[in-house]
């Protein structure tokens, strides 16, 4: 027994609700994910590919005579982001699969929804956590790469005709993060087991990519790349950073397909959360 008399005392400092109600949801989701050492290790490993383009920049800066042998232009950033897309996928495979599934499994979602947190706050919080995980391996290293490129080779990268490069890096990183995050969330909300959610997430993205490759090669369907979010991301990436090549579909269509995919996924997540709210 405690040495004092435990009595119920009232709390008289109720504050009005603030607009950033999703923030505690996102913060705690991220904290729980980052408590896993494997995720920290994966995060560190995800930055290793940065060494290759940085090495290229260094070599070209120190030994200009080798410049013709190495591709050091906007494509450097585009290629780097393509690689980071798959590492972002891995991050979410292990860190994003349980974001909603674990709440469904343990009844935790009722804890959120019976409080002053709306369905939108909950979904935004989980999305923000997934975005933060993905951006940590896309936007953060690619922004660093851009800064290093400008620092090493200002004559090549600090030009008016390349002023779009920094916004392009940010936009492509955000697009990759958004598509991967909503895919992870939609798989996470459809099952109570994080492992199954992870497998479904991987199968969804890689399966669609495989399907579009098969359709493109066997049926010669021009629109087939729009079926796969990863393929659409590649089309948008090539349109932004090069190389300029004849794409089967215009990058605008790819962008629209990605936005449609993200909207549909978010609608499914909100609907699923709503059904839990009513049935739980």
């Amino acid at each position, binding site marked *: 027994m405690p040495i004092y008399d435990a009595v119920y005392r009232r*709390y008289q400092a109720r504050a009005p609700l603030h607009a950033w109600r999703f923030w505690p949801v996102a913060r705690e989701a991220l904290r729980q994910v980052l408590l896993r050492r494997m995720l920290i290790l994966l995060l560190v490993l995800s930055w290793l590919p940065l060494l290759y383009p940085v090495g290229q920049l260094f070599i070209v800066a120190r030994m200009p005579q080798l410049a013709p042998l190495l591709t050091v232009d906007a494509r450097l950033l585009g290629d780097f982001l393509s690689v980071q897309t798959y590492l972002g996928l891995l991050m979410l495979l292990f860190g994003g699969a349980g974001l909603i599934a674990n709440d469904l499994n343990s009844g935790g979602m009722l804890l959120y929804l019976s409080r002053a*947190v709306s369905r939108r706050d909950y979904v935004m919080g989980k999305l923000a956590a997934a975005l933060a995980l993905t951006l940590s391996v896309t936007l953060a290293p690619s922004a660093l790469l851009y800064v290093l490129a400008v620092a090493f080779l200002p004559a090549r990268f600090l030009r008016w005709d390349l002023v779009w490069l920094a916004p392009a890096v940010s936009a492509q990183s955000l697009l990759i993060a958004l598509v991967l995050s909503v895919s992870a969330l939609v798989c996470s909300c459809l099952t109570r087991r994080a492992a199954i959610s992870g497998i479904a997430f991987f199968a969804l993205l890689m399966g669609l990519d495989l399907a579009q490759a098969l359709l493109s090669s066997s049926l010669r369907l021009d629109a087939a790349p729009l079926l796969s979010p990863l393929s659409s991301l590649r089309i948008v990436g090539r349109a932004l950073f090069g190389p300029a090549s004849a794409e089967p579909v215009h990058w605008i269509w790819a962008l629209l397909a990605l936005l449609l995919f993200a909207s549909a996924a978010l609608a499914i997540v909100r609907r699923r959360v709503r059904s839990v709210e009513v049935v739980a």
Partner: protein
Amino acid sequence: MTNAAGPLVTFHDLSVNYGDAKALSSVSGSFPAGAIGLLGPNGAGKTTLLKTLMGFLAPHSGRVSAFELDPVVNPLGVRQRIGYLPEGDCQLMGFTAAEQVAFAGELSGMPRGDAISRAHEVLDYVALGEARYRRVETFSTGMKQRVKLAMALVHDPDLLLLDEPTNGLDPKGRDEMLVLIRNVAARPGVGLVLSSHLLHDVESICDHVIVLNQGHVVLAGPLGELTGPPRRAFDVRVKGDATALLTDLKDEGCAWTQGEDGYRVFFAEAQGPELLFRLARDCGAQLRHVRPALETLEDVFLRALCVTSEVGKAT
């Protein structure tokens, strides 16, 4: 804060449907400050009423108001003032009890610092000592119930909704939980709705009860009035055939149930045992035993749900 004068929650002509199925049908009533027991068999509409109150479900018709707020228009404002203890498991994987309770406070709009200090205060109140630093998934059922109560209390709600709070507890744990709940319910300005199948729990805590059945309110009122006064119910034993007396009682508007060694007769308003004696004299029945029956909540509950069918069967 709470309007101490009026009821915390009112619902008027409230109907809620799940598709074509009617879960609540023109239900009216109120939750005054104090402890209210919400009773009813499975599927009676108790959970639907609580969910409508919290803004999860929109009424098909009628209106509901909590703290003078409309849960349909302002669900978050209502939920900020409600503490909900759900029946099932409700925990976050990987959280310690202290973290989880503080987080629950933060989700209810408390600043983080306040939520942490208040979490420890309510964990002290529910007597969860050093265990608060352990992960909740390692807790026993009783400890999980205490954590759920602490989460319901952390933001100091004006209304507590407790759904089967003693579920799965051993007798000692149940008694301790009831003491905690009684303590909270005794605080002025705090409302408490206890939804439970354990009538003893409700009887020991609540001063009002609302009985729902098939989406309708079949009984509501202060517990003291429903279980008394003793003049309303009498245990009666009759020598020989009692059919004529029972038929006459029914004709006079009285209800009755058959017990192991006699009958329990329920008189209507303004009736009393004098009626019983008069009818017995008129039909020649010999009364061997007439004693005021002290009705328990269980009697009230069963009468509300079953008396009509019992009478129908018996006659």
